[in-house]
């Protein structure tokens, strides 16, 4: 396996992209080839390649962990967490973040070209799972010369990947941080995702997914994002931010404009999302999340996923997160205890619901820095 500290190694840096020959065998039985992966690295890979830390992103996240997003110009989505001297310290770790399989920021997904037809895959892209995303990341790490990670870290869907990493490649993951996440999607989680998918599919522009040469189903995708966005916030957070306040008007319009600030906010969130995300990717990734049930993959008993593991775990939940509430983290902790795995867990307090893991949280910083500080 290649290892190098050459600073001009073309494999390392921002806005990297690699085409791996594959084929990648997927949980569905399908084979995917080639496998394109867009990724970024921060910091320097140690000579023994032992300081690599993989960050897994959430549903609509991307590889721009701590660098400006090329389309929106916004700072990296976890810039406050990742950097020199930050909790995920790039002076110490070689940090890798890859766009997940099925997404639309450069990694193979439904918008990628199907080598069989020369046209976008659209709905011919195979249905993927969280474990498939992890397998693709493992291929990338092989390419980067990283046999064994120092740690894997993820929030929300990123946490699902971190759990799947620990279950699939226990020998490659000595430490896993799982934030605001779950080991399986509940009926309610699936239900919200289905609302979003149906909104996309009900948009006449969706055309069975075959819209890449015309207008995309932006209205449907915007509605999907609006519904999902509500699940990322808490009622108290929405009340504090918007209450029943009206948007740039003195009184109700007795019509269907965005009278309320919260309506205006959601419409903006929905529209802004369609500028940066592919509707079919949204379908595929939400499907992967809905299919996720780590216990099911291990004979119905979650503890079996971690039997004999050498991985140290750190789980964090937020008290106002009703998408993946504390009880979900606690059931993972119970499984880890039953398996005898070294685990830490803390429920942090935040008014901001599920999104809290992306926002300023000194408590979260302290827990992550402390846990990673004990990584060899």
């Amino acid at each position, binding site marked *: 396996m290649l290892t190098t500290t050459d600073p001009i190694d073309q494999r390392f840096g921002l806005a990297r992209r690699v085409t791996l020959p594959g084929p990648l065998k997927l949980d569905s039985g399908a084979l995917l080839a080639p496998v394109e992966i867009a990724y970024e690295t921060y910091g320097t890979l140690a000579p023994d390649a032992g300081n690599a830390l993989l960050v897994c992103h959430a549903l609509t996240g991307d590889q721009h962990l701590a660098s400006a997003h090329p389309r929106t110009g916004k700072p990296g989505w976890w810039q406050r967490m990742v950097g020199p001297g930050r909790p995920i310290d790039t002076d110490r770790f070689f940090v890798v973040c890859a766009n997940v399989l099925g997404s639309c920021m450069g990694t193979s997904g439904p918008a990628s070209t199907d080598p069989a037809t020369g046209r976008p895959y659209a709905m011919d892209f195979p249905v993927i799972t969280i474990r498939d995303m992890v397998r693709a990341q493992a291929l990338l790490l092989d390419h980067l010369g990283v046999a064994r990670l120092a740690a894997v870290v993820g929030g929300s869907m990123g946490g699902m990947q971190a759990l799947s990493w620990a279950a699939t490649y226990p020998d490659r993951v000595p430490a896993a941080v799982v934030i605001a996440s779950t080991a399986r999607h509940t009926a309610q989680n699936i239900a919200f995702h289905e609302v979003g998918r149906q909104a996309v599919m009900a948009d006449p522009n969706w055309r069975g997914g075959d819209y890449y040469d015309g207008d995309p189903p932006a209205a449907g995708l915007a509605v999907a994002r609006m519904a999902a966005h509500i699940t990322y916030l808490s009622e108290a957070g929405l009340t504090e931010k918007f209450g029943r306040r009206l948007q740039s008007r003195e009184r109700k319009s007795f019509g269907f404009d965005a009278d309320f600030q919260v309506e205006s906010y959601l419409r903006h969130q929905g529209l802004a999302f369609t500028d940066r995300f592919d509707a079919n990717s949204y379908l595929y990734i939400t499907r992967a999340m809905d299919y996720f049930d780590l216990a099911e993959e291990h004979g119905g008993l979650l503890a079996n996923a971690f039997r004999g593991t050498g991985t*140290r775990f*750190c789980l964090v939940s937020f008290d106002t997160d009703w998408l993946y509430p504390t009880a979900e983290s*606690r059931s993972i*902790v*119970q499984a880890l*205890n*039953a398996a*005898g795995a*070294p*685990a*830490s*867990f*803390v*429920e*942090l*307090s935040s008014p901001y619901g599920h999104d809290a893991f992306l926002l300023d949280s000194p*408590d979260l910083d*302290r*827990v992550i*820095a*402390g*846990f990673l*500080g*004990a990584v060899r």
Partner: protein
Amino acid sequence: MSLRPDLAIIARHVPAGARVLDVGCGDGELMAALRDASGVDARGLELDRGNVAAAVARGLSVIQGDADTDLAGYPDQSFDYAILSQTLQTARAPDRVLDELLRIGRHAFVSFPNFAHWRVRLSLLWGGRMPVTRLLPERWYDTPNIHHLTIDDFRAHLRDRAVTVEGAWFLSGDKSTGRAAANMFAEHAVFLLTRNKSV
């Protein structure tokens, strides 16, 4: 290290390399001492999230949870020692917590403040007021200690439940006191217990 006296006693008696569960581990003071001094594999359970964060920041494996409700998930006899220091009297069901401790650990260390210490007795006898002492600094309405007990209460309970006492230490301040009149002169007690017949 300058551990609290009851913790120092426990630390002295946990052998190197043992597997330990510290229930109510606070900020992980004892766990860190055990890990650093004798390579003990220590895990913790702690109610207060600030304490959990502090313990995790020390590199310890600590789970936020409640001794009353969150011990059920630990397998039988999965630890060499289960430790409950100064926590028994705060449990809603201390008898059940003790049972869980002896189920999870092959041995259990339990330490608690003795409500029959002479200062406590005097306070009630002469003052007619709930005692506020060095070890019991809270007032009746804000104390976390909802199930006060004495050393003799605890001994009687152990007899009723057929629990074997493998060791007992009695402290007044940071000094040992005699076993004879411990129920009068000890401010707190440390017991080493087991339910296993042949250990």
